[in-house]
């Protein structure tokens, strides 16, 4: 049976939608504000031990000896593990590209500061940490490679000896006639950019409780897991267990943003449980561990990029040369962040040809992991900064240069040179609206007046496309196989007509339980209060992925619609049988199934569910006594990539344009955001309050990346950031209270026309702020091409002339 997934809310069998499209209160919130949600550190199991991990102080060193005897004899200590145990029981994690994985704990040598070297399980966390001080590790230090330049030098020390090189991957893509468009260009605008490492830093760090069942040889892991099934497969592989012997029970998470980490901590706690005769072992990462080596550092990049531009401002080509410091291996899939830009390589523009020369390099910095955006934030910063440089060189208004190059509404679906297909959009309408709410001419007048006073005031006008609803095929570039990412749900009714939905993921903050409840309630015509959403553990959940790649709101909507369609068909069959009417004459509408030709003859959902569960004698042949349906949704119409990585990857293409007005304080180098406006278009807004929250949260992270946040390493590859005193998270004082509006261009291909919207503001904000900063600096003839444009960096730039002349 082909299931049709509705692409507009009004296609649902309900005359008056009560929830979809409205900013309804979230079902998640009453428990969250009460403090009763079971975040992982709120869970204790009988007999539970606590894990503490000893981490390497060296970026690169051989482990000469490990002496655990004193620690093992310490008060409360039950088990200690080190590289020897790991070597015996585990294999390195799988990676893309293959062969750049680490064991969960250093074996023979350490590759970065903070790499786990040994771990203790004790009766309390305090005692476990005491015991760490009794572990004696002897190291023989090795020369570290601190950055890609060192890593690619001849005779450089190698991070992974068995690879013989520090270059993980080099690809050179050409899409269209790049050489020709650059040869025929009237202007070639090129710059080098440096994006320094930033990271996710959810307020809750990673945590888990692992219990190894020695009789069954199986493992149960409770924890703050973003992608439960994926995590289960990974643990099975690294711990050498059959995949159906690993059960992941995911708990509500205090944020994720991709950077929650978890594999190493889980494996270590699992091995300690195994060594503790199966007692449960809790590991709660602390913030210093997270900042040193947690799974959240991202994007350590060196760009050399250029635009080919005609005299009239038409941009015809985009060349990108990227060297990406992945840190010590690919265990965190930081590599994917270099592949994702293919999904929207040329942004909002009709750029006809592009090339991408990509080198992924291993160094002795901490391994990189996903972080919200997963690659496009730096890429967009490069593209959009070059657009601004172009506008300055041609003497054009940056907003008008963009407008001139936009993909036009009638050109959708539009295939970009790098292969992805954008489903829909109206970029000019978004630009017009944001310039209107910002009162762009007034901003320019304000800027002119400020400049006349010698103040450094600048404006950024930046639009980006947000690829939404990821597919594995987008990441083929770095060796990720596969097409199709599943998201499965089960929808069922009880005899009272209450609705239960089982999903494979847990709360992380984006409000997907609410979206699921809105969609199922409107489809079935029930009150949202009658709906209960629960998380199934990975062993019984349907195939799923969970949060990631701006997909879950759309994906769970698709899955629920699919399951509801199946329920609808089944209920029609039951009602037709009971009423002795033709099946085609029965419809579901407004929460009731009835005969089209005699609407007074019908049944409520509770009556149908009750009948199905308690009167099997009345069921038609072939219908099971089960008012439940499952559906596993995946993006329609995806395809395998060609040899240049081109494919239909991300399903939806939301877009937004941001306008920022900033002022740089000459004396301190600090950038003040004076005004910030956003207009976005993510199609149908399933819950507008959720969308707004995603936008504003993305702005905050974008402000952090653009101005403050940085994982700093010194010349010896020692991280200088280990607390929030060093890693500067934006507070309420730094984040602008934005003015927002939106337009709605529903996706013609996605469930209810919604487009992925979790990352767009992070894609746009850093570029917007940097463009505004460079606009402010323009009268001085200076440019800031490195992030974060911290007070320190800007002050140095502003005062470099004085320094040299003095």
């Amino acid at each position, binding site marked *: 049976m082909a299931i049709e997934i509705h692409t507009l809310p009004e296609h649902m069998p309900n005359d008056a939608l009560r929830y979809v499209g409205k*900013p309804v*209160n*979230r079902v*998640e*919130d*009453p428990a*969250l*504000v*009460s*403090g*009763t*949600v*079971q*975040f992982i*550190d*709120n869970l*204790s199991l009988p007999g539970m031990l606590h894990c503490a991990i000893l981490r390497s102080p060296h970026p690169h060193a051989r482990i000469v000896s490990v002496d655990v005897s004193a620690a093992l004899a310490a*008060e409360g200590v039950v088990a200690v593990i080190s590289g020897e145990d790991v070597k015996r029981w585990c294999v390195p994690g799988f990676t893309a590209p293959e062969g750049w994985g680490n064991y969960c704990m250093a074996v023979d040598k350490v590759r970065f500061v903070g790499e786990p070297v040994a771990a203790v399980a004790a009766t309390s966390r*305090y005692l476990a940490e*005491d015991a760490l001080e009794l572990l004696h590790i002897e190291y023989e230090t090795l020369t570290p490679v601190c950055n890609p330049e060192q890593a690619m030098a001849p005779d450089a020390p190698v991070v992974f000896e068995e690879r013989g090189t520090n270059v993980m991957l080099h690809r050179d893509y050409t899409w269209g006639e790049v050489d020709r468009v650059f040869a025929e260009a009237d202007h070639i605008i090129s710059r080098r950019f440096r994006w320094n490492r930033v990271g*996710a*830093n*959810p*307020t*809750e*760090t990673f945590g888990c409780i692992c219990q190894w069942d020695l009789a069954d040889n199986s493992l149960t892991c409770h924890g703050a897991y973003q992608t439960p099934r994926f995590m289960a497969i990974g643990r099975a592989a690294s711990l050498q267990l059959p995949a159906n012997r690993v059960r992941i029970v995911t708990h*509500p*998470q*205090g*944020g*994720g*943003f991709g950077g929650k980490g978890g594999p190493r901590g889980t494996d270590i706690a699992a091995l300690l449980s195994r060594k503790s005769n199966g007692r449960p072992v809790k590991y709660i990462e*602390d*913030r*210093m561990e997270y900042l040193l080596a947690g799974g959240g550092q991202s994007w350590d990049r060196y760009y050399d990029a250029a635009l080919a531009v005609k005299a009239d401002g038409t941009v015809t080509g985009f060349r990108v040369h990227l060297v990406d410091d992945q840190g010590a291996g690919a265990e965190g899939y930081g590599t994917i962040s270099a592949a994702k830009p293919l999904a929207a390589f040329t942004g909002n523009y009709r750029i006809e040809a592009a090339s991408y020369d990509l080198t992924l390099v291993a160094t002795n910095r901490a391994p990189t992991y996903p972080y919200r955006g997963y690659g496009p934030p730096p890429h967009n910063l490069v593209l959009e900064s070059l657009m601004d440089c172009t506008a300055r060189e041609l003497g054009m208004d940056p907003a008008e240069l963009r407008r001139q190059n936009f993909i036009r509404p009638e050109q959708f679906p539009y295939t970009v040179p790098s292969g992805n297909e954008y489903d829909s959009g109206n970029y000019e309408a978004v630009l017009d609206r944001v310039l209107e709410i910002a009162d762009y001419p007034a901003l320019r007048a304000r800027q002119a007046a400020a400049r006349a006073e010698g103040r450094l005031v600048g404006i950024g006008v930046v639009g980006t496309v947000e690829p939404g609803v990821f597919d594995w095929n987008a990441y083929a570039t770095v060796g990720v196989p596969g097409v199709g990412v599943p998201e499965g749900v089960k929808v069922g009714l009880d005899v009272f007509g209450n609705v239960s939905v089982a999903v494979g993921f847990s*709360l*992380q*903050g*984006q*409000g997907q339980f609410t979206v699921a409840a809105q969609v199922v309630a409107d489809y079935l015509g029930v009150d949202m209060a009658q709906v209960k959403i629960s998380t199934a553990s990975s062993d019984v959940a349907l195939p799923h992925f969970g949060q990631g790649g701006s997909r879950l709101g759309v994906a769970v909507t698709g899955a629920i619609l699919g399951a509801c369609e199946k329920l609808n068909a089944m209920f029609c069959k039951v009602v037709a049988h009971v009423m002795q009417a033709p099946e085609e004459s029965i419809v579901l509408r407004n929460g009731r199934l009835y005969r089209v030709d005699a609407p007074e003859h019908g049944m409520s959902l509770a009556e149908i569910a009750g009948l199905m569960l308690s009167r099997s004698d009345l069921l038609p042949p072939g219908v099971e006594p089960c008012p439940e349906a499952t559906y596993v949704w995946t993006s329609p119409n995806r395809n395998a990539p060609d040899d240049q990585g081109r494919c239909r990857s991300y399903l939806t293409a939301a877009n937004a344009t941001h306008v920022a007005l900033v002022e740089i304080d000459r004396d301190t180098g600090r950038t003040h955001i004076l005004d910030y406006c956003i207009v976005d278009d993510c199609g149908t807004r399933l819950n507008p*309050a*959720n969308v*707004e*929250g995603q*936008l*504003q*949260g*993305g*702005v*905050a992270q974008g402000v952090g990346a653009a101005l403050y946040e940085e994982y700093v390493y010194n010349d010896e590859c020692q991280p200088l950031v280990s*607390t*929030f*005193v060093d890693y500067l*998270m934006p*507070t*309420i*004082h730094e*984040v602008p*209270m*934005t003015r927002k509006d939106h337009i709605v261009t529903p996706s013609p291909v996605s469930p209810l026309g919604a487009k992925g919207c979790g990352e767009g503001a992070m894609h746009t904000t850093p570029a917007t702020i940097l463009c505004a900063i460079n606009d402010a600096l323009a009268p001085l003839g200076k440019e800031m091409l490195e992030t974060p444009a911290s007070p320190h960096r800007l002050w140095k730039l502003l005062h470099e002339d004085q320094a040299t002349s003095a």
Partner: protein
Amino acid sequence: MSSKQRIEVRVNGTRYVREVEARLTLADFLRHELSLGGTHVGCEHGICGACTVLINDQSARSCLTLAVQADDCDITTVENLRNPETGALHPIQQSFVDAHGLQCGFCTPGFMMTTLELLRENPDPSDEQIKEALGGNLCRCTGYQSIMDSVRLAAQRMKSSTLG
């Protein structure tokens, strides 16, 4: 390290007498000894504010406070906000729900306890005063705008309920 000290604290109106190690943080004491898990721990070095509780009606970082320092003190945690009889949410809680002032909710107890202190001392705060009060609490999800809205809404509701 196991020499213990006897403390007596009143938490949310209930008196507890416990023997604790001198090094035990108040956050760990509340969370793991008293099973009051609503106070969350985000950084354990006093920056993020997730662990904010009231000690004798003053906001404090329970991660930087030792349990022994709270001896003979009155402590208020997020668990005390709901009406214990009816289960009704406190106006601050309800305002955070209604104004979508949270996403993951991990930092929220800290924000709400800080807000409680603010609104007790200043029932009608300006935006600048709200920012000043909340400047020591980190939220990684919301970008703070809906938190501002929540606090404004809570102030309005608490004022009208006092007047009414």
